[in-house]
């Protein structure tokens, strides 16, 4: 029998103006990162509702990233400041409930930081791979 290597499932919410463009730039520059990362485009990181993060875990994600413009550079001026507060509290709560805090993360990646985007994804996939499958926030009904 072939041993299946564990491949994590990562959902990355990327803001349209910076991080999504950063991801595009990583592509333009052919910078590799694992296919485990799937990107969802949102107008701004502040569009990311904590419910989306939980939903991703429910549905089987092993890690969730929220990527936005650097604080101060938000296309909408202040959106990512709210993201920062919301996610700091959400992540703190998840950790409080005993959910591995390394699974969820906020990263600020500008449109010019293709290399950072790729590097971040590589590193995050490794972190989540090391953590293993998400068991504490999964919904068994969603398993295949």
């Amino acid at each position, binding site marked *: 029998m072939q041993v299946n290597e564990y491949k994590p499932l990562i959902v990355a919410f990327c803001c349209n103006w910076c991080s999504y463009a950063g991801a595009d730039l990583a592509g333009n520059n052919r910078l590799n990162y694992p296919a485990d990362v799937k990107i969802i485009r949102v107008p701004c990181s502040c569009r990311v509702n904590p419910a989306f993060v*939980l939903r991703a875990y429910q549905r089987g994600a092993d890690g969730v990233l929220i990527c936005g413009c650097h604080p101060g550079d938000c296309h909408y001026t202040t959106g990512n400041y709210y993201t920062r507060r919301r996610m700091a509290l959400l992540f703190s709560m998840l950790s*409080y409930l005993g959910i591995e805090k390394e699974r969820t993360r906020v990263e600020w990646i500008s449109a010019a930081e293709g290399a950072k985007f790729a590097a971040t994804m590589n590193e995050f996939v490794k972190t989540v791979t090391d953590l293993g499958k998400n068991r*504490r926030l999964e919904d068994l009904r969603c398993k295949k």
Partner: protein
Amino acid sequence: MQKISRFDIINRLKDLLADGNVDRVLGWKKGEFRYDVTPHVFTSAQELEADFVWGDFCGANFSKYLIKETAKSDKKVAVLLKPCDTYSFNQLLTEHRFDREKVYAVGVACDGMADIFKIKKITGDGISDIKENGEDLDVYTIYDEKPVKIKKTDVLSERCLSCKSKKHAAYDELLGGDGDVLDSNRFDEVAKIEAMTEEERYAFWQGELSRCIRCNACRDVCPACTCEKCVFDNPNSGMENKSPANEFEEKLFHIIRAFHVAGRCTDCGECSRVCPQRIPLHLLNRKFIKDINAFYGEYQAGEVVGSRAPLVDFDKEDVEPKNAVGKEDK
């Protein structure tokens, strides 16, 4: 023993009704037993005389009822508010949930409320009467002629043990005088959980939340949960959910609920009081309060009407999530 007597309160309320300042009073109504007190709208002096109670079991926070009550008529309603209730009162005003002009707020001094569950842990079931006796409670059961003497401080409800304030944040008039904001130990429990290992925390909450029966009592009693329609009842929210189908949904409900009231929760403790499964839900809300204080500076929801809640505010120098999580004490 509460500082102010039932008698004094009734007299004042009767005056208010007689003066025509108000045409009804939101107060506590006696039940079958000493401890099953029900919120009630009293409309006459006779009704007050007959059924109004004030004592160690008047835990219910009336603030949320004001939304419905003020919409009923143009006349003022008098409401009795314990110090902790006044924070909810202010928070609701901040969120434009009722018309202040239609309310006459009577602050009552509070000495803490007793927890019937704690009493029963000592006496067992079969309570026939509870009498206040100075600092003690005399609890009579059908199994014994003689009462069980209990120190009230031993059966104080959890939220009163870590009372944040004896000072009223809002009132039109005070009965029994005002107290001080207390240097409370209310974050100790949270800190204890934070100090656990990740596995322990997971096991702790798994155990607590697995009891949830999703009766929505916590939500429906919560003065911060005043949505016209809760996202969990709304098929269009993508979050609609009715039952704690599994561990995930148990957590989802409580995480989202805590998040939705984060920065708005005044820590009144009603959620834990009403939970039929006695899940310490306030420890979720309190975690957010503690974090908000640690990350963004001290903030007490409902302390000042019109204050901007921390989650709809920001500072350019706010802590990064990765530097925040797990470092709440710094």
